[in-house]
């Protein structure tokens, strides 16, 4: 046998400018041999024809350039969100569009628990989409008045607990703690805001996000979350990566059934810059085909919806300016310069326009000191950058990975409350990036919003909020441009565009198989294009 396999499809969208469309792709040893029509794909000799995708559309496997591995482990808990979501086992959880739906679902999950002391934990709850009285402890007490219950909200900054859970934390009438929301008579109503107030409950219910990230089943579930939405390369953009964790990742990603390439980014807040650089350089050679090590993540500000992003004048529209720094701007300058001088590839979280300005200044300073081409440092989120900042990104050679999903999930809130119409209309400005030549990717930041690159691409194309408002139509991009951003564009930000992101001779045979043609359909229905399967290294993943 030649070991050559040919997949045929109704259409292959290659993302390769030399051959944008094809019907057949020949694969050998995990690599692409030929792309074209049947005759062209058969030119390498005898081949086995695999017709399983004959009626479908093949694209390059999607690349999720900003998500977190906890999006896998979190499924240990009960999903309570407003949107349909697919579990790692492929079963769909129906959207819960009223409080009654949420309570009914939690109740049925509660009845499955045999041990009365085991807490019931929910996640993904999103009160902004629900009408009527806001979820409180009395709702949850209806499910059980004895079992501790905690429901994490989708932003992970809030939770709602029932009375037994509040009692564990000794939150009672008279409690006066910031973040513990009270009823009129002074007793806690069950809602807890921010980590400090949530800590006593999470600790007692043993909900630990670091543990969830390192749980081997959670890592495997993350692979499945990615696979189910067509992703074949996925980042974990803030990892501790101690030796134990790296060994475990080496083991799990080497399992033949692990369906994705994983790209964890080392957290640079974990220690002094010189140590982080050494650690990243030591990790880099441990990379394999399915585990890519060596990139580093830096954090600057907080989040816009939490009023903790760093904004320039005129600051927040309605609400307090609680902008935070995770690193002092002067320290960011030093850290960026040092990591850059050591050849580290950086990804920098910036939400507000003041944060992006500081990151641009730091980059400019580092590049002046240590000129280096093709560094591919990437600004992550970059939600409020104006056009001038995109021009600077272009001239400094920076990439932008924009948080397009925010437009749908938080766009209305940004328009009405946080930043006001002007800046909401120019947020996550994909067209600015493309116009000015800034390499573009778009992302979900899962589990903050669900991982689904076609949905993310839909957001970049339509810029439609949950209420149906279109935010800044001038920043809409075409379907073709959006598809590029979720494949080759994201691969470029990871320095992997030479091996993945398009279907062309010599590249890795990573595919997303779709039920319809995203280029031919209505752009408004892009998010509804079904993902049928993925192929990694030439092998179907499930």
């Amino acid at each position, binding site marked *: 046998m030649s070991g050559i396999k040919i997949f045929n499809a109704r259409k292959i969208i290659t993302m390769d400018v030399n051959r944008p469309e094809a019907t057949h792709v020949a694969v050998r040893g995990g690599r692409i041999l030929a792309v074209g029509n049947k005759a062209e794909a058969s030119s390498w000799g005898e081949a086995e024809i695999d017709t399983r995708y004959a009626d479908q559309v093949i694209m390059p496997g999607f690349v999720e350039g900003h998500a977190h591995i906890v999006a896998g482990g979190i499924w240990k808990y009960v999903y309570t969100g407003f949107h349909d979501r697919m579990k790692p086992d492929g079963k769909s959880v129906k959207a819960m569009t009223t409080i009654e739906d949420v309570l009914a679902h939690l109740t049925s999950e509660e009845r499955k628990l045999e041990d009365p002391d085991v807490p019931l934990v929910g996640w993904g709850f999103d009160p902004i989409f629900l009408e009527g009285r806001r979820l409180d402890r009395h709702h949850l007490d209806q499910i059980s008045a004895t079992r501790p219950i905690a429901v994490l909200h989708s932003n992970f900054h809030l939770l709602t607990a029932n009375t037994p859970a509040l009692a564990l*934390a*000794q939150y009672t009438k008279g409690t006066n*703690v*910031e*973040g*513990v929301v009270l009823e009129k008579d002074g007793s806690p109503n069950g809602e807890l805001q*921010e*980590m*400090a*107030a949530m*800590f*006593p409950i*999470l*600790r*007692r219910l043993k909900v*630990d*996000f*670091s543990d969830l990230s390192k749980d081997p089943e959670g890592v495997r579930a993350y692979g499945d979350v990615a696979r189910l939405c067509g992703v074949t390369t996925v980042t974990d953009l803030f990892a*501790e990566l*101690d030796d134990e964790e790296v060994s475990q990742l080496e083991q799990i990603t080497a399992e033949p059934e692990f369906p994705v390439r994983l790209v964890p980014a080392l*957290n640079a*807040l*974990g*220690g*002094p810059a010189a*140590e982080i650089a050494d650690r990243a350089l030591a990790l880099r050679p441990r990379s394999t085909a399915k585990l890519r090590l060596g990139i580093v993540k830096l954090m600057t500000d907080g989040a816009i919806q939490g009023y903790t992003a*760093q904004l320039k004048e005129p600051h927040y529209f309605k609400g307090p*300016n609680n*902008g*935070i*720094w*995770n*690193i*002092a*701007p*002067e*320290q960011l300058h030093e850290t960026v310069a040092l990591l850059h001088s050591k050849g580290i590839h950086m990804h920098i979280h910036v939400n507000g326009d*003041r944060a992006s300005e*500081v990151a641009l200044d730091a980059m400019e300073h580092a590049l002046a000191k240590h000129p280096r081409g093709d560094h591919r440092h990437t600004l992550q989120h970059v939600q409020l950058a104006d056009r001038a900042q995109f021009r600077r990104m272009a001239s400094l050679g920076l990439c932008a990975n924009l948080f397009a999903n925010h437009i749908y999930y938080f766009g209305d809130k940004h328009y009405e409350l946080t930043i006001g119409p002007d800046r909401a209309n120019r947020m996550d400005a994909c067209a600015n990036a493309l116009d000015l030549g800034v390499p573009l990717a778009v992302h979900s930041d899962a589990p903050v919003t669900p991982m689904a690159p076609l949905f993310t691409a839909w957001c970049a194309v339509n810029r439609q909020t949950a209420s149906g408002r279109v935010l800044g139509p001038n920043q809409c991009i075409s379907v073709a441009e959006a598809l590029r951003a979720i494949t080759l564009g994201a691969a470029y930000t990871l320095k992997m565009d030479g091996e993945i992101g398009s279907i062309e001779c010599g590249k890795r045979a990573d595919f997303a198989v779709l039920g319809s043609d995203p280029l031919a359909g209505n752009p408004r229905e892009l998010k509804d294009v079904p993902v049928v399967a993925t192929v990694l290294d030439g092998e179907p993943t499930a």
Partner: protein
Amino acid sequence: MSDATLPPLPLTVIAGYLGSGKTTLINKLLADAGGRRIMVLVNDFGELAIDAELIAARGGDTISLSNGCVCCAIGGDLFQAFAKALDASPRPDHLVIEASGVAEPDRIANFARAEPELRLDLIVTLVDALNARTQADDPLIGRTLHQQFQSAGLLLITKDQLAGQEQATGLASWLSTLCPETPILRGEMDLEILLGPETNPPPSVDQKHPHDHDHSHEDMYERWSFSAPLAPDVEALRVVLENLPTGILRLKGVANSTPEPVEFHTAGRHINITPAPGVTTHGLRVVAIGLAGNLPTDELAARFETLATSA
């Protein structure tokens, strides 16, 4: 989960912008812990100057000292840091967290305000006499500095020698207009101010002269103590603590009150009263510390005597 029956672990947060002297203060604290087993959570081991002879053991992100103290790296995750401190066995006597230069100390302190096994003892914000005024006006970080000042229970002006008398005094008066209720210290900070008086105040031998008054620490500080046979009502005690005269840096006491015995602490502007089920002695005992010549002993005596006689 650790033992919830232990008294709450007191937390001191050391805050202040880059270069304000946090590491210097922590080095001093570790070198001379005075027998207390302190757990110190720092951002960066690299800058600590721990005497090699003092190091008993060194793990990945932990250094154990022969004097009973432990030093850990925070690693950017407060949840993990607090969980680790509370699960440590044996539990330390005091937890000290070095906030990062841009941290808002209240965000750290709020963990201790919420968690029943923790007690917020003090936020001390260090203020660099050479640079703080300029930094406080900086458009990027000014707001952060102001927040660090506002959330402090005590302010400590550092580098005052380098800056000179005039500049340090100017800074102190500027700070006192920003934070009128917060005591401001200059230069050094004694361990008893940073962590509170070590022992509970002794019962007075002579009940006719319940006050005791002494100068210590080379006369930099002054100490006053008091005891009375009857314990006041907790609410009456709270009113007194919330309206203390100025000049008190630290105050600590126990009261065998009804419905339950309590322990109380003030650290500058911070007050806390916590249940102390272990207290069996009768009555009320208090100790207060202030700068020599600055402690309002007469006023303290008057207020606590009134409190004790109302009991």
